[in-house]
C-alpha cells in the first residue's frame, strides 16, 4: 500500500514537470527564426500552399491557442502527421522504437558484463598491477569517442573480416541481433569505463566493512561471502548509476544509430532536424522526456526493492 501511494505521488509530481517541458518545447519551436511553413516548403512554394500549410499546422491561430493545440496533442498522444514523412508521428515512433530499445538492451547487457567482470577483478585483486592495468584501460576507454570506435569496428569486423553486418537492421530477429553487436560494443565502452571505476571503488570500500569480516568469522566459505556480502552490496550501490546511464543510452542513441545506419529513434530525430520537420522534432523531444521521467521513476522504485534501507516516502 505504501508503495502504491508512493508511485501515485511520484506520477502526480511528474505533471508539473511535463507541463514545463511542453512550454519549453513549444517556446523553443517558436523561437526558430523564419516561418516554419515556408522553411518546410523549401524555396519553391506558392502563397496558397504556404497559407494552406500554415492553417494545417495551426500557425494562423493566436499563440496561446497554438499552445493549447500542442497540449492537446501531447495529452492524447496524437501528435498529428509528420509533414516530411507523411505518416502519423506516433506510428513512426512505435516503428523505430523497437530498434532503439533493442540497441539499448544489448548495450546495457554488454555494459553489465564488461563492467562487472573488470570492476570486480580490479576491486578484489590484491595485486596492484591488475587494478592499475584495468584502471588504465578504463581511462583510455573513457576518452575514445564512441562514433570513432564504431567506425573502426565496422571497418575491421564488417568490411575486412566480414564477420558482422556493416550496418542496417536486417529483416529477421537473428539478423537484428547480429546487427546490434558492433553498435552495442561501441556504445558500451564509455559507460563501462565509468562503471568499472565505480564498481572498483565500491568494492574496495565494501571489502573493509565489518559485515564482511563478521561473515568470515562465521565460517562462511569465501564464495558465499563474495556473492552474498560483497557483490550484493556492490550491486545495490551501482544500480542507480547503471540505470541512469541506460536511460541516457536510450535517448542518446543518435550518434551510434547514425554511424551504423540503424533506423531507430535517433536517426528519426536527425532526419526530422535535417528536414526541418518541426512536428516530428517537437513530438519526439516530448516523448523522450516522458520516457526519461518514467524510467527515472522505475529506477527509484526498483532501487527501493534492491536496497531495503531506502524507504518509499
Amino acid at each position: 500500500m505504501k508503495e502504491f501511494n508512493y508511485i501515485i505521488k511520484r506520477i502526480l509530481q511528474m505533471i508539473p514537470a511535463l507541463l514545463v517541458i511542453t512550454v519549453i518545447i513549444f517556446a523553443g519551436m517558436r523561437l526558430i527564426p523564419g516561418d516554419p511553413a515556408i522553411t518546410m516548403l523549401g524555396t519553391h512554394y506558392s502563397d496558397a500552399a504556404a497559407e494552406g500549410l500554415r492553417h494545417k499546422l495551426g500557425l494562423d491561430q493566436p499563440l496561446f491557442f497554438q499552445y493549447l493545440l500542442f497540449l492537446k496533442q501531447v495529452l492524447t498522444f496524437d501528435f498529428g502527421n509528420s509533414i516530411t514523412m507523411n505518416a502519423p508521428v506516433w506510428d513512426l515512433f512505435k516503428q523505430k522504437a523497437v530498434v532503439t530499445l533493442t540497441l539499448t538492451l544489448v548495450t546495457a547487457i554488454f555494459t553489465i558484463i564488461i563492467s562487472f567482470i573488470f570492476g570486480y577483478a580490479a576491486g578484489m585483486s590484491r595485486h596492484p598491477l591488475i587494478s592499475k592495468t584495468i584502471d588504465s584501460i578504463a581511462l583510455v576507454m573513457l576518452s575514445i569517442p564512441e562514433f570513432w570506435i564504431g567506425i573502426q569496428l565496422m571497418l575491421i569486423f564488417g568490411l575486412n573480416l566480414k564477420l558482422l553486418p556493416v550496418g542496417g537492421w536486417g529483416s529477421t530477429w537473428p539478423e537484428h541481433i547480429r546487427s546490434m553487436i558492433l553498435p552495442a560494443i561501441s556504445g558500451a565502452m564509455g559507460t563501462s569505463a565509468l562503471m568499472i571505476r565505480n564498481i572498483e571503488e565500491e568494492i574496495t570500500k565494501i571489502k573493509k566493512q565489518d559485515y564482511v569480516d563478521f561473515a568470515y568469522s562465521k565460517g562462511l566459505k569465501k564464495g558465499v561471502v563474495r556473492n552474498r556480502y560483497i557483490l550484493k552490496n556492490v550491486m545495490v550501490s551501482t544500480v542507480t548509476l547503471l540505470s541512469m546511464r541506460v536511460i541516457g543510452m536510450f535517448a542518446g542513441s543518435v550518434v551510434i544509430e547514425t554511424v551504423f545506419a540503424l533506423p531507430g529513434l535517433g536517426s528519426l530525430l536527425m532526419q526530422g532536424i535535417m528536414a526541418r520537420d518541426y512536428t516530428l522534432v517537437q513530438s519526439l523531444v516530448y516523448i523522450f522526456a516522458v520516457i526519461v521521467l518514467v524510467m527515472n521513476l522505475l529506477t527509484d522504485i526498483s532501487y527501493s526493492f534492491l536496497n531495503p534501507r531506502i524507504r518509499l516516502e
Partner: protein
Amino acid sequence: MKKKKISISFLAGGVVLLIILGMAVVPQAFTSQSPISQDMSALLQAPSSAHWFGTDELGRDIFARVVYGTRIDLAIGVFAMLVSAITGTLLGLVAAYYGKTVDACLMRVLDVMTAFPFIILVIAIVAIMGSGIRNMFIAIWLVGWKDYAKLVRSEVLSEKNIEYVAAAKTLGYSNLRIMLRHILPNVIDGAFVYAISDIMMCMLVGASLSFLGLGVSAPTPEWGAIISGGRTFITRAWWISVFPGIVLAVTGVAISLVGKGTADMMKGR
C-alpha cells in the same frame, strides 16, 4: 602534511598536454602543410613521409588538418567548460546560500533538465538555433551548467552553517562578500576536479556534434568533422578517420591524468 611526490602519470599527462597546447597555439611550428589547400595530384594517399597521416579525398594533408584542428577542439572543450562551470557554480552558490524560494526554483529547473538527456537537449538546441560552432557552444553551455550547480549547491549546503559563515555574518560582511570570499574558496575544489574531466566531455560532445553535421562546418579542420568526412572513404582510406580519433583519445587521456594528479595533490593539501 608531507610534500607529495608528483606522480609519473601526472608528469606524462602534463607533457602530452603541453605538446597539444603547443599545437593549438602555434600549429605552423608542427607542420609546414596547409590544412585547407587541396592537392589534386595527391588524393587519398596512404601515410608516407610526405604526408604522415595520409591525405583525404581532396588531397589535403590529414596531419596538418589534425594539427590545425587542435585549436578548435581544445577551445570547444575549454570554453564550453568554462562558461558552464562559471554559470553553474554561481547559480548553485546563490541558490544554496539564500535557500528557500531561490533554492526551490533552481531545484525545479534541475528536475526538468534531468528529464532531457544531455545529447538530445544539445541536439535539440542546435536544431532550433541552427548548426555552427557558436550555437554549439551555447547549446553545451545551456545544458552543461546543471552538473556544476548540483555539485556546488550540495557542497554549500553542508558548509553554510559552519561557524566561519556565522562569524563573517556577525562581522557585518555583505552576503556577496561572504559568498565569494568565504564560502566559494571552500567549495570550489570539487567543481575544479569535475571541471578538468569536463573539458574532455565537452570535447567529445563537440566532436560528436560535428560528426553529426551539427557543429563545425565543412572546410574548417575539426577532429570530429574529419572523422565524419573519412567515413565515406573508409574502405579506401582508413587513415582519414583513424588518426584524428587517436589524437582525440590521447588528448582525453592526458587531460584525465593531469586531472587525477591535480585531485590527488589537492587531497594531500
